[in-house]
């Protein structure tokens, strides 16, 4: 069965791999797509990443075709339509894999083991196999034939954005890595760089990292702050508001759209800007709540990170895969039955500012979650750049899916790995915060602070502002966001 690759490495090597992460400079990409020119690229799977990456690579002058499992072709499934309507050649594994110089595995992570086992024997000697997420290599310990080069090019955005940004003449931040055990010809880095250029990623910033750092940080981010915290926060805030007699339609709307609105501020100016949107008394309140939350939740974040690092998380999850997803599907069904999920957003107008004013606790939860995830990751040896992308950068994306689809659909939409981790987090976090929630009233969730009292202690405000701005996630965030903003207003 599967064998956790990370656990086979000596500690020194484990730490070195986790810490691997470097922001590359633009002139490292001066060779453009040269390393892939004239090579035959075959993509397995034509879903969100497969289709959009392929469109970009083809528009960058590369030779792209798609291979799908036989049933998808025979039944003309959506993936087949995606590929053919966009004018790509589509063929079976037998037809296309043997001709490929580079095979991009863009199937769902859960399917990687069977898919790779099936295509590997068909691959040309000396060809390259590429992933957009390292789970299969790192957590399942997939062994790839020695003559094959193995790389990763992972856009840090949904597939549709990968395409939309390319069409505008830009790209999305991208992480690349070479699997050092599989770089027989030493060409892995050149191929990964050319691939990143082909998708436009080099224009928005590329992190040179390792399979291990990518997986361990990606898993940590998605199960804690991204999906887990927002799910737990939604349920707790909703139940509290209803308990306090707030109209349930209002409560539902405040939460469903609130995450999106407050994290929009996060996206543009980090945690600092998100809190700056609050009045001074509310800001201090949110800060204090977040400090309290961080203290209560820190052991949970540590546990998630530990379980991810030592492989417990993926082992337990894969046992559930082998057990027909019993836990996953059970938890998914439970989510559908929660009061928040079953209460539709009311037909009430909530202004942009009101989401902040009446959602102080939500702001505190986002702050606590982002900072904890970032702190825990960096303490585990993951470099700040990586930790930033996997925590703060992606939070607005998930908030966006909640705004559109609430929790059940959010969970069905994210990867199974993220979903599984989200439920684990949620189940542990709900009881953990039970006491804390007893002290919560509508002033911090639902109604906002009493506006007659707007006085604050200057010294305290200065202290809070300084603490906000000096958090390490803010420092790295300013640099990375600055990099993108620079590009946009370079002239």
């Amino acid at each position, binding site marked *: 069965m599967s064998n956790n690759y990370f656990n086979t490495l000596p500690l020194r090597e484990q730490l070195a791999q986790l810490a691997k992460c470097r922001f590359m400079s633009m002139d490292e990409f001066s060779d453009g797509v040269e390393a892939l020119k004239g090579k035959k690229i075959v993509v397995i799977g034509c879903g969100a990443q497969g289709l959009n990456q392929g469109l970009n690579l083809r528009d960058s002058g590369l030779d792209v075709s798609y291979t799908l499992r036989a049933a998808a072709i025979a039944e003309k499934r959506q993936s087949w339509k995606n590929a053919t309507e966009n*004018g790509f050649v589509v063929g079976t594994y037998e037809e296309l894999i043997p001709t490929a110089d580079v095979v991009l595995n863009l199937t769902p992570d859960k399917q990687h083991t069977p898919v790779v086992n099936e295509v590997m024997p068909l691959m040309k000697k000396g060809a390259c196999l590429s992933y957009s997420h390292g789970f299969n290599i790192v957590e399942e310990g997939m062994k790839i034939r020695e003559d094959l080069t193995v790389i990763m090019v992972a856009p840090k955005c949904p597939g549709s954005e990968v395409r939309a940004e390319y069409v505008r003449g*830009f790209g999305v931040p991208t992480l690349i890595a070479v699997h050092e055990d599989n770089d027989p010809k030493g060409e892995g880095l050149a191929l990964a760089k050319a691939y990143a250029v082909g998708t436009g990623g080099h224009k928005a910033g590329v992190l040179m990292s390792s399979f291990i750092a990518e997986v361990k940080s990606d898993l940590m981010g998605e199960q804690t702050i991204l999906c887990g915290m927002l799910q737990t926060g939604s349920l707790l805030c909703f139940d509290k508001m209803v308990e306090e007699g707030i109209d349930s339609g209002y409560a539902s709307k405040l939460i469903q759209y609130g995450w999106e609105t407050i994290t929009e501020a996060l996206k543009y100016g980090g945690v600092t800007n998100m809190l700056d949107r609050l009045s001074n008394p509310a800001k201090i309140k949110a800060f204090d709540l977040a400090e309290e939350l961080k203290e209560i939740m820190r052991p949970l974040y540590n546990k998630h990170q530990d379980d991810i690092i030592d492989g417990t998380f993926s082992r337990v999850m894969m046992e559930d895969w082998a057990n027909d997803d019993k836990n996953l599907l059970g938890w998914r069904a439970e989510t559908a039955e929660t009061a928040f999920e079953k209460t539709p957003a009311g037909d009430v107008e909530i202004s942009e500012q009101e989401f902040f004013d009446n959602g102080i606790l939500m702001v505190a939860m986002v702050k606590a979650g982002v900072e904890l995830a970032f702190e825990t990751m960096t303490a585990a040896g993951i470099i700040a750049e990586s930790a930033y992308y996997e925590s703060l950068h992606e939070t607005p994306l998930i908030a966006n899916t909640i705004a559109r689809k609430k929790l059940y659909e959010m969970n069905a939409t994210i990867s199974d790995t993220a979903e599984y981790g989200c439920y684990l987090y949620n189940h542990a976090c709900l009881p953990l915060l039970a006491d804390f929630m007893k002290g919560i009233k509508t002033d911090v969730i639902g109604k906002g602070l009493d506006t007659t009292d707007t006085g604050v202690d200057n010294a305290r405000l200065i202290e809070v502002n300084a603490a906000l701005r000096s958090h390490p996630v803010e420092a790295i965030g300013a640099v990375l966001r600055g990099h993108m903003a620079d590009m946009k207003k370079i002239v």
Partner: protein
Amino acid sequence: MTQILPSHIEMKSIKIENYTAAFGESFTLNNINWTLEPNQHWVITGANGSGKSALSAILAGAGHKVSGSISGLPQHIEIVSFEAQAELIERELKKDDADIMDVISEGTPVREILEEGKALYPEFDSALLDQLVAMFKLEPMLDRSFRKLSTGETRKIMLIRALANNPDLIILDEPFDGLDTASMQLLQSLLKSKIDSIAMVLVLNRFDEIPDFITHIAYTDHGKLQHSVDINNKQAYDDLYQLLHLKTTELSVPATDLSDRPPSLNPKDPLVRLKNIKVAYGDATIIDGLDWTIEAGQHWQLSGPNGSGKTCLLNLITGDHPQCYTNDIFVFGMQRGHGETIWQIKQYIGYVSTALQWEYRVSISLRNVILSGFHDSIGVYTKSTDKQKAVADQWLALLGMKDRANEPYNQLSFGDQRLLLIARAMVKHPTLLILDEPCLGLDDINRQLVLALIEKICTSGDTTVLYVNHHAEDQISGITQFKQLEKLDAQSS
């Protein structure tokens, strides 16, 4: 309880008195006094940015009231405008699952969009809906995804929807733009058949589009209602016409930055050679067996009804249509699908269309919008040279926006945005300039400005123009080649 007004015969007059309203940071409608009596049907006209759309929109509750009052508004008002269209498109984009993690969704079907009013309005007119759908020959679209419609088609759907909702008052902002002549006549006659039950306010740029049932014209300028004219008052009407046709100053096209030109082309090659083009989605064939060659210096006008594949054809040339890789296409010395990048192709092309305007949603300065034309990007991600910046400033001066170089683009009026995108397309003196209905949404003065510019470009020598237009009147003297597309039978495959 909703109270149904039988018809507007019983409607009160709408009185707008000393009304001042703000639209965003930068635009205000000032001290409007305007009365719309029952049985009157109005056209509002004026230059781009003069406030004609804003004036119509206050009837539908838009703008932030500063002072004054509005009374007598009927209960059910429908508005169809570029803003409303953009809003609906935005709403549909937001629904798009593809934007989130994994799923590629098909989007809302057209039928659902059309019938949204059924549940909302007891007066909803299903028979009229069917009649309109048939009239515009839209039956084959009903099950298609709304998002996949062309701009012209979306516009028709909005119109049909608003009419079928059967309001007391309908506000139509540029209802005829983007319609071919046949569709426009159909729509005019249909509107005419409803004037007894629906009060109409139309915002129009062109005097020659004013339907004969219109009784009054309002003329806006600088956020004020400058003139209200009874259509039977011949003298006042003529003056107004003149006002809108103010002579424009002598124009000259700014030079470009010659240091950054794409590789020169073999003069023996055509710019574009399309052979036996086929484009189909599933079973629906859009283009079948088309051949077309564009030689350097040969200016073309391309026309055809909505849905005949004009935009699709242009996208094959620009590389924006994915099926360009499955067709025999030779552009600018490159046979498509042989290792060229789309950026190598785009460097020879300047391009303007309404679709581009929808997509150009970035909050950058006016100068940067023009500069992005040197890089073929939406937004600016590459450093521009001093020469390029100087050229951009000349274009701003030409458009009368010299002092506004650093203002944000997304706060401009629709017409001003269009002018800027035209400058963006022309700024590099492209080998091929593609203008897909460039005058859509422009008033007469700006339309003349644009047409004059195109004529200048046509005679300047280094740019070949490909001009797409419905309006036969908007002919350009330098264009001698015409290509007409016909709508294929949706059935054949």
